[in-house]
């Protein structure tokens, strides 16, 4: 045992310096020098204010914006730190719902979300991502079908022409890379920024 002690401790110390200090700092230096946009979180900055990250979803509640997917993130309850309260798109505490397929809580939540969609005038099958929460709670994207289904609501809230709005959504659809890689999607923050630019 004791003959192994010196190599164990010395190698552990050397590798801690090499892989725990030099390696991450080297990557940080290279990344900050050559790819500062990504290395700092792909932030959208306007007039000195950070508006968000293109990779991190934001909570939108106002009817004049396209709505993201529902989010299961939470935050400690300010009144009782042992409990949590809902805080959609809390980018300091990513979380999924972790509800299983036969969960009554899931069924109740989806039922309420579908009723809300029906009240907003959506008919026919509701796009799955409009009522189901993402894994991270921070999904920046929605499906093109979901975005298009929201066109009438947003057009009404903004007093915009539906065709013009539909064209905007279609211009924001990111298709599969080389026709194969990935899934078609719309980045909600980018879409809403373009929408603000339109009005």
């Amino acid at each position, binding site marked *: 045992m004791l003959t192994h002690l010196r190599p164990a401790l010395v190698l552990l110390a050397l590798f801690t310096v090499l892989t*725990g200090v030099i390696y991450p700092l080297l*990557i940080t230096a290279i990344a900050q020098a050559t*790819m500062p946009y990504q*290395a*700092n*979180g792909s932030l959208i900055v306007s007039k000195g204010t950070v508006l968000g990250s293109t990779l991190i979803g934001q909570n939108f509640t106002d009817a004049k914006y396209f709505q993201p997917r529902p989010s299961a993130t939470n935050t400690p309850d300010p009144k009782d730190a042992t409990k949590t309260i809902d805080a959609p798109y809390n980018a300091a505490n990513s979380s999924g719902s972790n509800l299983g397929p036969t969960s009554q809580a899931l069924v109740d939540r989806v039922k309420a979300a579908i009723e809300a969609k029906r009240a907003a005038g959506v008919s026919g099958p509701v796009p799955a991502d409009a009522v189901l929460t993402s894994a991270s709670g921070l999904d920046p994207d929605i499906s093109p079908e979901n975005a298009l289904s929201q066109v009438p609501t947003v057009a009404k809230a903004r007093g915009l022409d539906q065709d013009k709005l539909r064209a905007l959504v279609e211009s924001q659809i990111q298709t599969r890379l080389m026709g194969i890689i990935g899934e078609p999607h719309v980045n909600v923050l980018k879409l809403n920024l373009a929408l603000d630019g339109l009005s």
Partner: protein
Amino acid sequence: MTLNGWLQIILVLGLVLVSVRPLGLYMARVFEGQKTFLSPVLSPLEHGFYVLAGVKPDKEQGWLSYTLAMIVFSLAGFASLYAILRLQAYLPWNPQGFDNLPPDLAFNTAISFLTNTNWQAYSGETTMSNGSAMLGLTVHNFLSAATGIALALAVTRAFARASASTLGNFWVDVTRATLYVLLPISILLALVFVFTGSPQTLLGSVDATTLEGAKQTIALGPVASEEAIKQFGTNGGGFFNTNSAHPFENASALANYLQIWSMIVLSTALLITFGKMVGSERQGWALVSVVGVFVIVGIGAVYAAEAWGNPILNALGVDPTLGNMEGKEIRFGEAMTAMFAVVTTGLSCGAVNAMHDSLMPLGGMVTLFMIQLGEVLPGGVGSGLYGLIVFAILAVFIAGLMVGRTPEFLGKKIEAREIKLAMLAVLILPLSMLSFSAVAAVLPSVVATLGNAGPHGLTEILYAYSSATGNNGSAFAGLNANTPWWNTTLAIAMVLGRFAYVVPVMAIAGSIVTKKRASASAGTFPTDRSLFVGLLVGVILIVGGLQFFPALALGPIVEHVLMLSSKTF
């Protein structure tokens, strides 16, 4: 299921297949001590390490000494990581001002990282400082993977050598694995992850003002550097709570391809290294085929279950086109989520790009079953190789019984001692997984920590102990695992799964290495043909899987049947 989904799966599998041979042969050169193109740079560093550590690189160790070295190294790593986590408030790089971890959580996390499990009882962005992520988690991602590779090499040398007594030098293997394999590729991977969108900064977070005027605090940190080795070393402990589902860990469909590639490539390449070192590359490819069978069938099963969607929700008016989207990200879609889920559980990586708790009953069952089969497909870096070899030994034994000949594997006679030790290793996994689950399921205080009721709750318990024992680390995360009961029992399960498994395996290696190599004759059962591949698949399923069937029937299978009759809990 769509054609495009399968095209994507085939594309990633193709990328893996073209990479395993160059990487496998490169590793064979590294571990046989030959010069490689990196030697001019790394050789002085490597020998400097040996001098400081007092390691004589030419002095080889027998199986017991090699295993003891591994255990001492792991204990030292545990002590260091535990200390870092308990003292993080006083250590550098804590811009978030996080407190020290409580003892049970630090204990669990330290065990988890040194066993290459990386179970996440912690929630990255709310508990771990950047300093802990770098000095603690990143370091042990490297070292636990290097340890796994070293053990795999020891087993490999047992078959490669004849009438010998030593299996190599643990310190040399760990040093070379880190310097020549893990570090260079992690540097490249980390930079590509930054390119795809993973942050790499020493800042803790940034505050944004959203379009609606609310404040959003966005957690940042040195993500890419941890991400690279987390995937490449099949560690799987995330920088963020939601792991590879978080857009900063896995930013796009392309990043997701790279994540899957990097978690499967090294373990699979080690099978080629094994083949090359024992003198039969074909043997390596036969083992790769076994892995291929499990991975492809598994992906198909999960993909089918998930793409079908949840019938209870579809009946409420949800469009079934996208499949079951609860707990999944839009940018990955069903196909690449299914592939990620199967690769991460089959491989004992444990990273997740979807919440496995929200998978359909049968989709979740496949991921659970992949873990329960043991670290064989091809397991965590290194450990998969020796998991597979244990089953290969059992397979030739069973074939030997059928035809009445003494079993041989790669010219080495397999005798009573090896079979006893192999069975001991194989039985430890179900013993830990099922016994702990059985006890936990009847404790009311444990049942209170479950996130879901009904049969799904039982699956959460089974998954937790399977994941810990299998050193996987993924979770049905509805379970609140950050309690003293879970932190402690899961840590014990992780230790059993790593060390109680590897000691018998190393004893097998110690006995195999001393044997003569018999030359192949007409009566030798060829172990590099499709007949053997089929036999090995069967043995893994029957010996490794059958004992879990009753438990699976009570969990996911009964949940599936109840779901079809719209029963909820």
